[in-house]
């Protein structure tokens, strides 16, 4: 696939369709891949990479890139196309400056997940079918791919590309995932248990803004948390209230817009399962206002910017069964 992609990118560069290519660039090890813009065939040959470790969602870069001169070729995974489509819906990306090639994704290996299995000193990592072979400072290891993937890939919502100019490989389908299982599990806890759970998670937050800055829904010209005039600006979470505040408001601001790409949880240096906040909103929206997948199509009104006269009353949350 990588070879094909490079060839196609070179061809599009050569015929002038595009003048840049955004993709993934190899790092020092196999897993430390950096998103990068390539402008020449040589650069592509030297560094362009696409494999089961290319996890970054490239769509957010296109906000800036699409405003530059000329057209950019973007390789987008199914996940990324949802974000891309949502950004188009919000007029954040100039569509005619982007040439999208959809590329398949079989689920990405997550180095933190591998590390969490006790494998340390990873110098090299290679996917071999369903097995991931790891070379470490302390010898070779192998792990099943299923065990090396993060929740977002284990519970992949869709292998379908919702926007593209061209598709490489076969088109996939929207999948039935179990992505709300953990949300449901939390909902079934008592409020005290939930409070303890989230305090345990959110108290680790170091307010590095990685979740926000990587999020393709967080594209504000100026985030309210950076804006002293907003009244809620914070540079560091001084106390537990501010930790909660940041994550509640962030989740609320992306509610109905979050495509559940899972980048927030991937980049969190403290392994906070931030996607569980977003998924709660998605689950509530699905249950209360009908199934809605952000980015799935360009027309459906975002659930928070529309209504029906028959919508549930807020009291529904007092009434929902169990400890929900």
């Amino acid at each position, binding site marked *: 696939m990588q070879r094909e992609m490079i060839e196609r990118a070179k061809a599009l560069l050569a015929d002038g369709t595009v003048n840049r290519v955004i993709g993934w660039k190899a790092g020092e090890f196999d897993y430390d891949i950096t998103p990068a813009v390539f402008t020449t065939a040589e650069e592509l040959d030297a560094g362009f990479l696409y494999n089961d470790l290319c996890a970054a969602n490239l769509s957010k870069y296109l906000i800036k890139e699409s*405003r530059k001169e000329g057209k950019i070729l973007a390789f987008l995974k199914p996940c990324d196309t949802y974000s891309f489509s949502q950004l188009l819906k*919000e*007029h*954040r990306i100039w569509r005619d400056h982007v040439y999208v090639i959809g590329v398949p994704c079989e689920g990405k290996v997550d180095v933190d997940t591998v590390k969490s299995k006790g494998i340390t000193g990873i110098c090299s990592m290679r996917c071999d079918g369903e097995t991931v072979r790891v070379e470490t400072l302390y010898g070779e290891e192998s792990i099943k791919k299923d065990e090396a993937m993060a929740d977002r890939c284990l519970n992949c919502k869709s292998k379908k590309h919702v926007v593209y100019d061209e598709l490489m490989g076969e088109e996939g389908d929207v999948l039935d995932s179990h992505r709300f299982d953990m949300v449901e599990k939390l909902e079934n806890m008592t409020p005290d248990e939930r409070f303890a759970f989230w305090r345990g998670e959110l108290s680790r937050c170091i307010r590095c803004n990685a979740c926000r800055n990587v999020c393709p829904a967080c*594209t*504000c*010209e*100026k*985030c*309210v948390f950076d*804006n002293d*005039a*907003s*009244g809620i600006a914070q540079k560091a979470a001084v106390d537990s209230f501010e930790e909660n505040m940041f994550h509640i408001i962030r989740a609320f*601001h*992306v509610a109905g817009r979050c495509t559940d790409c899972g980048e927030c949880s991937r980049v969190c240096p403290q392994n906070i399962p931030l996607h569980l906040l977003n998924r709660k909103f998605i689950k509530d929206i699905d249950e209360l206002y009908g199934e809605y997948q952000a980015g799935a199509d360009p027309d459906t*009104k*975002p659930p*928070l*910017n*529309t209504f029906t006269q028959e919508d549930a009353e807020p009291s529904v949350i007092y009434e929902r069964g169990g400890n929900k």
Partner: protein
Amino acid sequence: MQRIGVFICHCGTNIAATVDVKAVAEALKHEPGVVFSTDYPYMCSEAGQNIVKDAIRDYHLSGVVICSCSPRMHEATFRKAAAVAGLNPYMVEIANIREQCSWIHKDIPQATEKAITLGKAAIAKVHLNAPLYAGESPVVKRALVIGGGIAGIQTALDIADAGFPVDIVETKPTIGGKMTQLDKTFPTLDCAACILTPKMVDCAQNENIKIYSYSEVTDVKGFVGNFTVTIKRKARYVDETKCTGCGICTEKCPMKKVPNEFNLGMNNRSAVYIPFAQAVPKVATIDPEHCNMLKKGKCGLCAKVCTAGAIDYKQKDEFIEEQYGAIVVATGYNPINLDKFDEFAYSQSKDVITSLEFERLTNAAGPTSGTLLRPSDGKHPHTIVFVQCVGSRDTSGCGKEYCSKICCMYTAKHAMLTREKYPDTDVYVFYIDVRTPGKSFDEFYRRAVEQYGVHYIKGMVGKIVPQADGTLAVQASDLLDNKQLHINADLVVLAAAIEPDKSARPLATMLTASMDTNDFFTEAHPKLRPVESPTAGVFLSGTCQGPKDIPETVSQAGAAASKVIGLLCKDKLTCNPCVAHSDEWMCNGCSACEKVCPYGAITYEDKEFRMPDRTTAIRRVAIVNEAVCQGCGACTVACPSGAMDLKGFSNSQIMAEVDAICK
């Protein structure tokens, strides 16, 4: 830092009795920015306002906080006073220490503490107030009256008389409303038709009035001065411009067994019909539910006999869009459905009728040509029982909890007229209370008793059982005599409660006008603004606002007209300056605000920006049309970046209030 003056009103004892106003003035004096703090018995009085004006000048105040009654009461008063003294009126904030403090709390220390907190919140807000300047929007000099009864007619005539064009939309084929169905009117007993029909004709002839009969309002957009209304002209299958109202079609129509709604189904009409002789417009209408031509494609007789060639079976509903500066609601009332009152046997016996049916039975244009005859056998009734308060003052869920107001008087009228025309008739009126507050009303009622010998009985009818001999066994209590009465009546007349027309509720939604739980339109103020709806530019006329008799309806109709005229006289309206505003540097151009704006006040523009890093960028940013924005603030929350804020109720102002309250 603002220089703030704080003014605490005693409101006589309304505030001062529960709030220690001196303590409030003293406590607020030490708030940051406060340079003057005082109290006065009546801040809204001229002397009180002068204290405010003087302080603004003497202390160079940049902000004013009035601790008084609700801002809904006197915010405008104090803003005006501030403006006179040279302060921007939007630098005034009101702390509501009467309705929301002194009147609800009894404990003086508690109420005083709350008043201080409310004052502090207002001070905190004023610190962040900025002078606001109202924009202007043009006024479309045309009014719409929805409903063509006496209320609508009177309003339209008055507006037209002042020289403004006005349109009447009436759902029925003719204007005139309920009053056309009445026989005589109390307390003067003049004939309803005699006084109403000239007004109907006036409407038709007035150049400034356009009547959309057999039409409905289906959509309302816009705001005061600039409403865009969609009117559905239902197909009447008769070309209004050609029909002469000669009535030949109605005579020739073979389908003659359609219940005549004008006579409340007590006789029949043809499928093509003119509701009554004096209808305006006097134009035939084909009832598509009963016309054989429209239903089965067979007949076509009316088209053949119409010399004017007015019949058009192919006519379709037509939608027209019109611009109006003001809208008057005059949707009127209907008697309630009596199905829930089995005890009165309304649905079991033809001889149990409503008062409105009684009107038709005594009306010369009615089914009996004005002779009072029993609907069942056409015989003259000798004993008539009138039952008042049927469904009125009823909290059991079967009826309405309010008093329908008109029943006492029309029942007295009916009883009196019956006794006058048919002195051999025994007339009983069962009442709970007789309510006759009105000019010459009680005299009228007493005449019924004293001069005409109507038997007024304090008590209620418990049940009515139709007998085999055709009479009605009426069982009732006489509370004053402490007896149960059994009367064999020939006719029973029920004074059914009245309720707002069913079309009012969806109309209120379209107009964003508020309604009470009974579906009567709410007035902007129950005493001081009784003919205005809280929605600017929407006015109320007649029984859509509450039960009323004819004189009251007419006077309210005139009042609504004068309010409309006052509005239409203006060339421009001052807009509410508390509107949304987008900080284009923070705007993402994501369209979230546009999607939630109910007024379409937000548009987008690709704008060139000189960025801080000295590059140029073209960015899509939101622009708010200040004349169209009504200041609800929906956009401010939809906006994730906080670029959209609301003047006068900004994020920082509201948060400052929150802080002050929670301190």
